[in-house]
């Protein structure tokens, strides 16, 4: 070992240590931001390590520098622009997009090495079986990660509907067929054939699409988390391909941590990973069942004015935010409304369901952006016993997470999912654009209850009108 190799080794060790600390710190609110920076520093260190090693060894040729600079400039600039520009509400799809690109990167590395074998750091020419296996894994997992993430992004953006035929049993047949094709091409590749590679790329790319496309939007965060875990696996196997232990450690850590996070998310929704992956979108498969559809019989709709009057008279109000609030970008208007209410002595809290919105923590981020004090956000287990003592609940663009069916109706696909018991409150206002079903496509029994009134309209518009009404009622906010 010469000096630069030792130096690289030490840098790598430090980088792994800092990465581990970073992942650890990201799971605690207080340390999360510093932990994220720590991980970024660790990544920079890792890059420095590669340069140190190469400069101390055979050096880096000029043309290589040119390609490095071009690639990193384009990637860095685009990444920075997207990260700064993207709306907070579009976070889930942004993470999916980034993740897909990570998978693509691993895929490209593996393909390049497959076509142009490198002499690697095992010191031998790369024809070994292990190297072939790692290339195959990189290609397989990388392709699935890429197409799966892009589909997830497109679905969250609303660019892609769930095609009807994808809900039928046929999709399992198609996916199994694709899987078989992938396996066949893998075995050809491993037994020495070269033709299997493109077949493998295509079949695994299609498999990524086929598996992700039927999954309903509410389950999408789980899928993204799983795909994130895959991209860790892809990185680890790329580490085998180019002979980098640092890559293997980091990839393995992300892969395993992603798997745990996926499990935690599933628990939060009371869904098993298997049912998320293979169950298809909730409800749409049994929409003919009694629980899935059904007519609303007792809908009460009311005006913004009535809503304002009731709110003014209330002592305790709980706000239940959902995806609709995020879509309408109404968090700031909501904050103004609650400031006025608080100014007149109404006690306002926010009930945060673990999977409200399209991603866990979505609502926390959204409300934090609008300066809602952190202490006013209450998690489900804490807030549920408080509903019976609450005068008014304002449901803003949330649907499935307040559906009492999950508690009362064993035949409902939602049955067993923990929900917010808003119906226990004296009055419930549901602000909603229309009577369309929630993401699960299931009828919401809450809307039929006697103490529920619907206020139809876009959340931002309704809240804006509400603000005007409240001010006209003579309440002057302190702020």
């Amino acid at each position, binding site marked *: 070992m010469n000096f630069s190799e030792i130096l690289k080794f030490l840098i790598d060790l430090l980088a792994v240590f800092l990465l581990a600390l970073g992942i650890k710190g990201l799971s605690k609110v207080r340390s999360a931001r510093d932990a994220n920076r720590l991980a970024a520093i660790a990544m920079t260190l890792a890059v420095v390590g590669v340069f140190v090693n190469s400069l101390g060894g055979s050096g880096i040729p000029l043309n290589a520098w040119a390609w*490095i600079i071009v690639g990193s400039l384009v990637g860095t600039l685009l990444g920075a622009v997207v990260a700064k520009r993207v709306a907070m509400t579009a976070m889930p799809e942004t993470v999916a997009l980034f993740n897909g*690109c990570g998978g693509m990167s691993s895929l490209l590395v593996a393909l390049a090495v497959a076509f142009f074998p490198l002499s690697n750091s095992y010191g031998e020419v790369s024809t070994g079986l292990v190297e072939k296996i790692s290339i195959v894994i990189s290609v397989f997992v990388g392709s699935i990660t890429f197409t799966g993430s892009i589909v997830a992004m497109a679905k969250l953006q609303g660019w892609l509907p769930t095609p009807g035929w994808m809900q039928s049993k046929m999709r399992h047949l198609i996916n199994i067929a694709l899987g078989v094709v992938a396996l066949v091409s893998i075995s050809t590749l491993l037994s020495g054939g070269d033709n299997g590679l493109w077949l493998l790329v295509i079949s695994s790319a299609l498999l990524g699409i086929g598996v992700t496309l039927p999954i309903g939007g509410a389950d999408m*965060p789980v899928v993204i988390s799983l795909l994130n875990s895959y991209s860790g696996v892809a990185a680890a196997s790329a*580490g085998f391909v180019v002979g980098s232990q640092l890559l293997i450690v980091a990839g393995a*850590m992300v892969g395993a941590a992603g798997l745990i*996070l996926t499990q935690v998310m599933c628990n939060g929704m009371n869904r098993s990973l298997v049912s998320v992956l293979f169950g298809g979108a909730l409800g749409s498969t049994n929409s003919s069942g009694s629980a899935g559809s059904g007519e609303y019989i007792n809908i009460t709709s009311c005006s913004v004015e009535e809503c304002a009057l009731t709110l003014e008279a209330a002592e305790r109000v709980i706000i239940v935010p959902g995806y609709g609030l995020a879509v309408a970008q109404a968090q700031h208007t909501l904050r103004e409304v609650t400031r006025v209410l608080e100014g007149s002595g109404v006690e306002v809290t926010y009930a945060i369901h673990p999977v409200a919105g399209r*991603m866990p*923590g979505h609502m926390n981020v959204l409300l934090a952006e609008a300066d809602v004090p952190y202490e006013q956000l209450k998690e489900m287990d804490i807030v549920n016993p408080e509903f019976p003592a609450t005068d008014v609940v304002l449901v803003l663009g949330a649907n499935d997470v307040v559906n009492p069916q999950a508690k009362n109706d064993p035949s409902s696909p939602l049955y067993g999912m923990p929900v917010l018991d808003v119906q226990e409150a004296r009055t419930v206002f549901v602000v909603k654009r229309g009577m369309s079903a929630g993401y699960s496509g299931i009828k919401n029994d809450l809307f039929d209850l006697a103490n529920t009134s619907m206020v139809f309209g876009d959340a931002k518009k309704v809240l804006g009108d509400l603000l005007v009404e409240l001010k006209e009622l003579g309440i002057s906010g302190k702020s």
Partner: protein
Amino acid sequence: MSFLSEAFWVLLLGSLLGLELIGKVPPTLHTPLMSGANAISGITMLAALTLIIKAGNNLPLLVIGSVSLGFALFNVVGGFLVTDRMLAMFSRKSSRK
């Protein structure tokens, strides 16, 4: 063979570490944690770098390496910045009270 056997140990221990690191995560942090871990998975940029450095005068290899590096850095830079943006909202709140 020595690299390989070491590599498998590294793989095993890395996976175990990953399993241990995330014990209890508050739901608030699910999205940032996912996004942060996602940025780290862009570590394949090291593989892309290695590829370019070792490519010599092989033009296709240089191009693929460069594109791959671009994709990876898009993931890393974007991932960390977006995570920071999300987390900034939490820390601002807690420092004000």
